[in-house]
C-alpha cells in the first residue's frame, strides 16, 4: 500500500518533467456499472457508452500517446459490491479514472474507497445533490438543474396551483420533494395544495393513487403531478393514468426519471403531451447529437436503440477528462482534478458545459413533451444553469457551499466560515 503510494508519487513528480515519456501505457479506464441485477436495465447502456467513447478516443490516436484500455467490472446491483469493486479497480487494476454508478446508494458505497485511495470517478446520473466529494465529478443534474426549472415551468407556463408529488420511496425523490416543498411554499403555494405520496420500487397498483390525484381537482385549482417515480413502476403508473382518461391538458405530469429508455417499455400514444425534464433529449436537433446517435447505432449494431441523458453526461464527462489529462500531461488524479476546474465542452443539445469548482456541471435544462413515437418534443431550453451541490431551499444546506479550487472544501459553512469536513458524509 505505502509502497504503491510512494511509487505513484515518484512517477507523478517525474511526469511533470517529461510527461510523454513517463506515462504508463496503456491508460486504464474503470467502468463500474451493474451488468446484472435490478439496475442492469439502466447501467448496461452506460457501460456500452463508455466503451464506445474509449474506442472513439483510441481511433483518434489515444491519449498522451497511449492507447486507452477499459476495465469493466460488474457490481451486480449489489451496493456493498460497489465499494469492493471500486477498491479492486483502484488497487489491483490500477485504473486512472472510473466511470460509474447509477443509484445514490451505490455512489455512497463507493465514496469512502475513492476518498481513501484518492481515486477519480465520474457520476453521470441526475441525483438529489447535498454532496460534493473531492474525488467525484457529478456530470448529471443537481435538483436546481432539473426539478426547480420544471416546477417553474409548471407555475409560469401551465398555471398549476395544486401539486401532487409522487415518488418512489428512496433518497432521490425524498430529498427532491423536500426541496420542492420548500420552494413551492416560497412561491406562495399553500401546504394543503401539496399532496405527497411514496410507493415502493416496482410498484404496480396505481388505481387508488391516480384516483387521489384526480380528486385534487375538486379544490378548483389546476392540478399538476411532479413524478420522481423510478424505473419500471412508471409503466403501471402511466397505464393507469391513460386508463383513467387523464389527459396532459387536464393534469400534466412532469417526470424526472422517465426518459427515452423507460418509454420504450410502453405504448405512448395515450401519454402524448406529458412532460419530462432533463439536460438532454435524443430529439435535440444539432449536428453533434446527430453524429453521436449515428456513432451509437454503429457501435451497438441496432438502429432502434435510443440515447438518453446519462449517456450525454458520460459523453461530456469522458471528453472533459480526456482534455484535462491532455492539459495536465498526466493521469495523476490531483493534476487532472485541477485541470478539470473550468474545463469546457460542447453539449449535444447546443451550448457549452462548464465544470465548476464544486465538481458539478453548468448545463442547460430542457423540458420535453412526450410524442406518440416515444421521443420528446423539446418545448423549452434554458441557458446553462450551474449545478448547485448544496440546495438553497433547505435551511441546513442554504449556508453550505462547495469550492474545491479556492476553499479546498466540499462542505463549507459560509456563516461560520469553517470547513465542516473535507471527506464526504456518506
Amino acid at each position: 500500500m505505502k509502497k504503491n503510494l510512494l511509487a505513484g508519487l515518484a512517477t507523478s513528480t517525474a511526469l511533470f518533467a517529461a510527461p510523454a515519456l513517463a506515462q504508463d501505457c496503456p491508460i486504464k479506464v474503470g467502468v463500474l456499472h451493474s451488468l446484472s441485477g435490478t439496475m442492469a436495465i439502466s447501467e448496461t447502456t452506460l457501460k456500452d457508452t463508455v466503451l464506445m467513447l474509449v474506442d472513439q478516443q483510441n481511433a483518434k490516436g489515444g491519449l498522451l500517446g497511449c492507447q486507452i484500455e477499459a476495465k469493466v467490472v460488474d457490481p451486480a446491483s449489489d451496493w456493498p459490491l460497489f465499494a469492493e469493486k471500486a477498491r479492486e479497480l483502484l488497487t489491483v487494476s490500477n485504473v486512472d479514472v472510473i466511470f460509474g454508478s447509477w443509484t445514490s446508494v451505490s455512489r455512497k458505497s463507493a465514496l469512502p474507497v475513492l476518498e481513501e485511495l484518492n481515486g477519480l470517478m465520474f457520476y453521470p446520473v441526475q441525483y438529489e445533490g447535498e454532496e460534493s466529494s473531492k474525488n467525484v465529478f457529478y456530470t448529471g443534474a443537481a435538483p436546481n438543474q432539473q426539478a426547480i426549472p420544471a416546477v417553474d415551468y409548471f407555475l409560469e407556463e401551465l398555471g398549476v396551483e395544486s401539486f401532487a408529488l409522487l415518488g418512489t420511496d428512496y433518497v432521490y425523490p425524498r430529498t427532491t420533494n423536500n426541496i420542492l416543498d420548500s420552494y413551492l411554499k416560497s412561491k406562495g403555494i399553500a401546504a394543503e395544495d401539496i399532496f405527497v405520496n411514496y410507493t415502493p420500487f416496482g410498484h404496480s397498483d396505481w388505481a387508488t393513487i391516480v384516483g387521489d390525484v384526480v380528486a385534487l381537482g375538486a379544490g378548483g385549482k389546476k392540478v399538476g403531478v411532479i413524478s420522481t417515480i423510478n424505473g419500471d413502476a412508471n409503466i403501471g403508473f402511466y397505464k393507469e393514468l391513460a386508463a383513467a382518461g387523464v389527459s396532459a391538458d387536464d393534469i400534466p405530469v412532469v417526470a424526472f426519471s422517465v426518459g427515452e429508455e423507460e418509454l420504450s417499455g410502453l405504448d405512448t400514444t395515450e401519454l402524448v403531451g406529458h412532460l419530462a425534464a432533463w439536460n438532454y433529449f435524443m430529439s435535440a436537433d444539432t449536428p453533434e447529437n446527430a453524429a453521436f446517435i449515428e456513432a451509437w447505432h454503429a457501435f451497438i449494431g441496432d438502429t432502434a436503440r435510443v440515447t438518453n441523458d446519462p449517456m450525454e453526461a458520460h459523453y461530456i464527462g469522458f471528453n472533459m477528462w480526456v482534455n484535462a489529462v491532455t492539459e495536465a500531461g498526466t493521469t495523476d488524479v490531483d493534476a487532472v482534478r485541477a485541470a478539470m476546474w473550468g474545463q469546457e465542452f460542447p453539449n449535444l443539445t447546443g451550448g457549452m458545459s462548464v465544470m465548476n469548482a464544486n465538481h458539478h456541471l453548468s448545463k442547460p435544462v430542457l423540458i420535453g413533451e412526450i410524442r406518440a413515437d416515444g421521443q420528446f418534443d423539446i418545448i423549452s431550453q434554458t441557458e446553462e444553469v450551474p449545478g448547485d451541490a448544496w440546495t438553497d431551499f433547505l435551511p441546513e444546506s442554504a449556508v453550505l457551499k462547495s469550492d474545491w479550487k479556492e476553499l479546498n472544501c466540499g462542505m463549507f459553512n459560509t456563516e461560520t466560515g469553517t470547513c465542516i469536513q473535507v471527506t464526504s458524509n456518506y
Partner: protein
Amino acid sequence: MTVVSSGPKYPGGGFLAAQPATLWFLGGLGLFTLGVTVLAEGFGLGTLSTSMVKILGMTLCLCLIAVAMDVVWGYCGILSLGHFAFFGIGGYAVGMWLMYARTEGIVTEALLAAPIPPTETEITNAIATQIFGVVGSSELPVLWGFAHSLPLQLLMVVLVPGLLALVFGWLAFRSRVTGVYLSILTQAMTLALSLYLFQNDSGLRGNNGLSGLQNIPGLDHLPQSTLSLWFFWASALALGLGYLFFAWLVSGKFGSVIRAIRDNEARVRFLGYEVEHYKLVVFTLTAIVAGIAGALYYPQAGIVNPAEIAPIASIYLAVWVAIGGRGRLYGAVIGAAAVSLASSWFTGGGAPAIDLGFYRINWTDWWLVLLGFGFVAVTLFLPRGIGGLFDLLVRKS
C-alpha cells in the same frame, strides 16, 4: 431454559478428541488464517491485495452464518428463510455506532472552531443533520438512543436478533407452525423487516442504509490494509469459536434430541420432550450467531442497507448450506465459501468467456443460470451436497 444444561459431558476434555472433523476444521482454519496473514498486503509479502483480504474476511463471516443455518435447518429441520435478517440486524446495530461515532468526531471538530463551545443539544442536532440530511431529516430517531456507546450497541448486536428470534419463534412454535409453512412465515418476517427498513422514515436511512462503515472511529490513522487484516482475524476467530460451540452443542444429548425433532417431531413430543423449547433455543442461538456474523461482516463490506435483508438473501443462504451438505457443519462452510467465492469470480469478470462461434457466453450474464441449474442438479443427484462427497471419500479410505 433447562434444556441447554443437558448438553454433552465429556470427561477430561475428550470432546475434541471425539470430534476429529472439528479438529481438522479448526486446524485448517488456523493454517488458512496464518497463510492469509503472511501473504497479505498489510502484514507481509503483499501478494494478497487488501480487497482480497476483505473478500476472504467477509466469506468467513458468511461461513459462520452458514454454520448457524446448518444447525437450525440441517440438524433441527427448521428451514428458516429469515436468518439473513438477523445477520442484517447485527450489521445495522454495529453500523449505528460506527456512523454515530465517526460523525461525532467530524461535528465536534467543526463546532470547536466557533468561539463559543457547543451545547449537548447542538452536538446531537449537528450529528443528526449530518447523518440524516441525506434522507431529508435533521432529528435523531429514538432508535439511535444507544448509538453513542460502543458497548451498548455491541449488546444490541446480540440482544435484538436474540429477542426478535425468541418472540417470533415462541409465537410460531407455540402455534405448531411447521415445515414449509414455517419457512413461508419466516420469509414473511424477513420481507416485513426489509420493507420496514426500505421506508425512508424508518430512522435507519431507508434505502441508503448505513455507509462508510469501513472507517473505524478512533482508528483513522491505520490504513485499510491493516484494518482489513484485523477484521479478517476477528472473523476467523468468530468462525472458529462459533464452529466449536455448535459442534459441542450438536454432539451430545441436545444434538440427538434436535436431530430427532428433525426426523419425527411428533414422536419426540410423545416421548415427553418439550419440542417447542428445543426449537426455540436452537432458533434463538443461531439468530444470535447470525447477528454476530453480520456485525463482523458489514464493517468489512462498508455499507449495510435493506437490500441485504431482502428475502432472496436468506434463500441463498439455504442454497449454500444445501450445496455444501446439510447436517455436517463443515459442509455449510464449504458451501458458503465455494458459492460466494465462485460468484465473486464469475461476476468479477475473472472467468473467461466461452466463444461458441454463433454465441459468446459471458459469465456475468450466464453465471446465475449456471448457479440455478447447478443447484437443481445438486438437489437431485447429490442430496448430501459437496460435504456428502467428502463422507464417501472418508468412508472408502
